[in-house]
């Protein structure tokens, strides 16, 4: 293990004194939002489409424990989203997914039927699992 990195991680872990909890954040560097429902879960990533990646539990791969939503700055309706964010103080994950679904649907006719069906199922699973999940708007105001 890289000793400098290990030291950095140990220090960062100590700074986060509270127990890990479900929640999400916006990564400016990646222009993407992350949300984890299960803070202790080990997972593997499955790319659903160009906007959405789901994290599935390694213990039970049917279970979605987290998501990554990409390309926040170019989401359809981004301006409207910004207004909502400023008013409500939070970003509803479902609003982000609505944007990604809208856009990726425009390419859906080019997809093989089985892939389109899988994508739809993944979106439905994410909507069910992450309903009511929000990210603090402070994370997004500089977007």
């Amino acid at each position, binding site marked *: 293990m890289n000793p400098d990195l290990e030291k950095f991680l140990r220090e960062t872990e100590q700074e986060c004194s509270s127990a890990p909890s479900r929640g999400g*954040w916006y990564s400016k560097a990646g222009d993407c939002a992350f949300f984890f429902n299960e803070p202790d879960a080990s997972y593997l990533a499955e*790319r659903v489409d160009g906007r959405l990646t789901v994290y599935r539990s390694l213990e039970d791969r049917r279970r979605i424990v987290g998501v990554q939503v990409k390309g926040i700055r*170019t989401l359809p309706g981004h301006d409207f989203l910004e207004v909502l964010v400023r008013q409500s103080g939070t970003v509803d994950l479902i609003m982000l997914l609505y944007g990604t679904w809208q856009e990726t649907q425009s390419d859906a006719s080019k997809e093989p039927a089985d892939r389109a069906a899988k994508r739809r199922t993944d979106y439905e699973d994410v909507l069910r699992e992450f309903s009511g999940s929000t990210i603090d708007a402070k994370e997004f105001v500089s977007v």
Partner: protein
Amino acid sequence: MGETDRPNTTQNLGFHTLEGCVDPREPESGTTIEIRIPYSDVQHSMKHNPGRAWQLTTADHVLREPERIYEGVRREGEDDRDGWCYVGRPKRVCLGSDRWIPLPKGCVYVVFVSSRFIAYEWRIEHADPDDPEGPAGCESSDRYGRLKWEK
């Protein structure tokens, strides 16, 4: 030595620097570069999935010893592609200071790096069934611009 530029403002503008990473612009040359990790991303990961934060040690390994580098990561809604995806098959993945798991069978480890040499995502993915050294869908133009280099 890697360095941490810890932020002293609420904007969390600091980075941790990983040294000795393969230069994705000329991987065949043996040149190494620094790749930065946003401190805020690590801090958020520690709060919401510490295993993700600790996986940085695996990401660091893959950035130093990749098996492949893809160029031009596709972003939906943008015509331009930029950045790189480093791919490796480490024997094990770090999930905590003393917690490791074997890389699951049929999987690869990927690290996404922006054109500004900032790593923003690192994770286990399924390998491609037709090309087990690459991540699922690696040959699709939906995903990457091109395979830049392989070991």
